[in-house]
């Protein structure tokens, strides 16, 4: 088999598997940019996966499923927002609690939904004409679904908002120095709530993608740790949506290759590879100078109380 087919298959799988990672990462970037670390991504994702599947199954509409998944993810993230912003609870503890709650709740609610195939899934599309482009055609325009494209479009949009608009400046200033932002008349709490909910919506949509488009079926615990990869990717991306895309797709490519290369390299080693990559990057990023240069939000994990900042 030629190297060309290898690359085509790898990149095509990269887009399919990387999409939920990218969605989750984009959301977490916004939450963290506003100064709220949300370790509840796994919980929001699995709630989205459950809600999306049960809705799509009941109504017969996969798109409605994705929308409900996003809404449920957003609503679910309010728990973390309330605890960590309003009540000023420890963000790490509150986020972890959200993950546990999501995994448990979706397991109980999803009890009777296992072992059911979804009658109508999000259709895979082949763009006539474009799919005939040599090399790029089969990667980009064959057998992917609309969500893959929508997610890619989100990247420049969210990047632009964050770096080129007033809203973006407000979000970043709340994450860097909430006291100053507050003195300028910005409602820190409201901005943080908004960003956490955006994170929840995107994580929920990522879950919906898994259970309605990617698989499509429901299994308890089916996100299998994807939410944690998202958290690592957020740091890898230096809280930048464009780098988030690079990270998510790089991880996805490694993940695909971890199965593809098994005849030559031991599977145990290969399975560790994407995670080793994440740890390697985390180590690199957590070196002080780099961190300063690339800019972790200075107020990340710090609850804001007026007069104490």
């Amino acid at each position, binding site marked *: 088999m030629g190297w060309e087919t290898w690359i085509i298959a790898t990149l095509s799988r990269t887009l399919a598997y990387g999409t939920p990672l990218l969605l989750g990462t984009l959301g977490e970037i916004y939450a963290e940019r506003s100064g709220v670390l949300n370790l509840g991504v796994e919980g929001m994702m699995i709630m989205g996966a459950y809600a999306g599947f049960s809705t799509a199954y009941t109504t017969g509409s996969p798109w409605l499923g994705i929308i409900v998944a996003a809404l449920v993810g957003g609503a679910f993230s309010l728990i973390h927002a309330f605890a960590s912003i309003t009540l000023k609870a420890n963000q790490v503890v509150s986020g972890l609690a959200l993950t546990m709650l999501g995994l448990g709740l979706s397991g109980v609610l999803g009890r009777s939904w296992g072992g059911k195939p979804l009658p109508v899934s999000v259709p895979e599309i082949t763009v006539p004409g474009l799919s005939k482009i040599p090399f790029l055609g089969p990667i980009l325009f064959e057998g992917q679904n609309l969500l893959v494209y929508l997610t890619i479009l989100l990247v420049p949009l969210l990047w632009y908002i964050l770096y080129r608009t007033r809203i973006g400046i407000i979000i970043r200033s709340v994450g860097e120095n909430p006291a100053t932002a507050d003195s300028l008349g910005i409602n820190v709490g409201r901005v943080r709530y908004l960003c956490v909910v955006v994170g929840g919506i995107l994580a929920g949509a990522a879950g919906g993608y898994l259970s309605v488009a990617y*698989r499509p079926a429901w299994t308890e615990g089916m996100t299998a740790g994807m939410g944690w990869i998202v958290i690592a990717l957020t740091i890898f991306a230096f809280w930048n949506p464009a780098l988030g895309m690079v990270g998510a797709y790089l991880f996805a490519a490694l993940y695909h290759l971890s199965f593809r290369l098994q005849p030559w390299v031991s599977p145990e080693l290969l399975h560790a590879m994407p995670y080793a990559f994440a740890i390697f990057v985390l180590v690199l990023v957590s070196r002080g100078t780099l961190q300063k240069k690339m800019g972790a939000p200075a107020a990340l994990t710090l609850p804001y109380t007026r007069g104490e900042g």
Partner: protein
Amino acid sequence: MRTKVVLVILLVMAVVFSLASVAMAKEYVPGEPLKVGFVYVGPISDYGWTFAHDEARLICMDAFPWLETVYVESVPEGDEPLVIDKFIQEEGCHVVFTTSFGFIDGTVAAAQRYPDKIFFHCSGYLRNPNMATYMADFYQIYYLNGLIAGALTKSNKLGYVGAFPIPELKRHISAFAIGAREVNPDAEVHVRWINSWVDPVAAKEAAEALIADGCDVFAFTEDTAAVVQVAADKGLLSFGHYSPMYVFSPEYCVSGQIAHWEAIYLDFLEKIYSGKYTAHNLQDVDYWWLLQEKAVEMGADKGMIINPAYEDQLKGIYVDDPVFGKISVYDLVMTRLRQMADPGVTFDPFQGPLYDRKGILRVLEDCTLSVSGMTTMQWAVEGIVGPWAGEP
């Protein structure tokens, strides 16, 4: 002050536990109502291993009016002692089923701690006077599925997604390969491991990797229907595993393996109720139940041995068999199925002489592989391609 509080708590705990041990000391009297606890390793909604055990529990509940059951699901391996203690001390169970190999240590310890209670450990090899072992195994069915897969493949590459490289999977993959190569000597079984029992995302990507490598028929050992779904999506054939998976791919799911743990559970519980099994005579009780005992069934769906869409095709493919002469693959599958399912089994897939893929003779001529040979199997038969941890 603080020491006083601690002392009071300890005292209360001591009283509670001693009361509990008084309550649980009595042994089961045959004919009395029986309370049984099930320790599950996964969620009962997994549509795989734990789902199948729980279906069997419900069937037993329907069958025996004197039976009461409790269960705890998603118990991490290593936490089983807590659940067993709870079953016996708080629930008053007389019988406990631990349904995962990884519960072996906790079950053995509990059997020694509660000599008057009865324990059944699934897929293990350690027994006690009050602890038996049991397993409903699929290797015969994987062989039969292999016959079909070998006949239907066009690329001669069969894909197999495996959870963990343990003896159970190794014998299943080997049996599948033996079947495939019996009808198609060029067939290869390409294996990819996902190192998880329940991870549909990994199973999907593993199947996609096999498709990219040219595989066109799929079997697997993992607890979700992900592989069947991926294959269906691409119009490729697959075999269901553990639960009837026809529903996930009515067009492309050719056959599969279905578990009937109730065959074993009904037998056990009936024998405890009648006094045949007690907490003193289980040292040598080991159920290794197969097709003949109806603990397992071949089929895409219950009662559907081969998907009717493929019957004609299989009836039209002929092979030369040393015993039956020219025979269609369909007839060969049905004949072999009868040979293994009818009383007095007359065929075994692991029939010698059998060499592993390194060329070492593993099963002597005129011999078949013993049960212990199967439960400790680490080698791979010829025709298996892919990593094989612990290969001798």
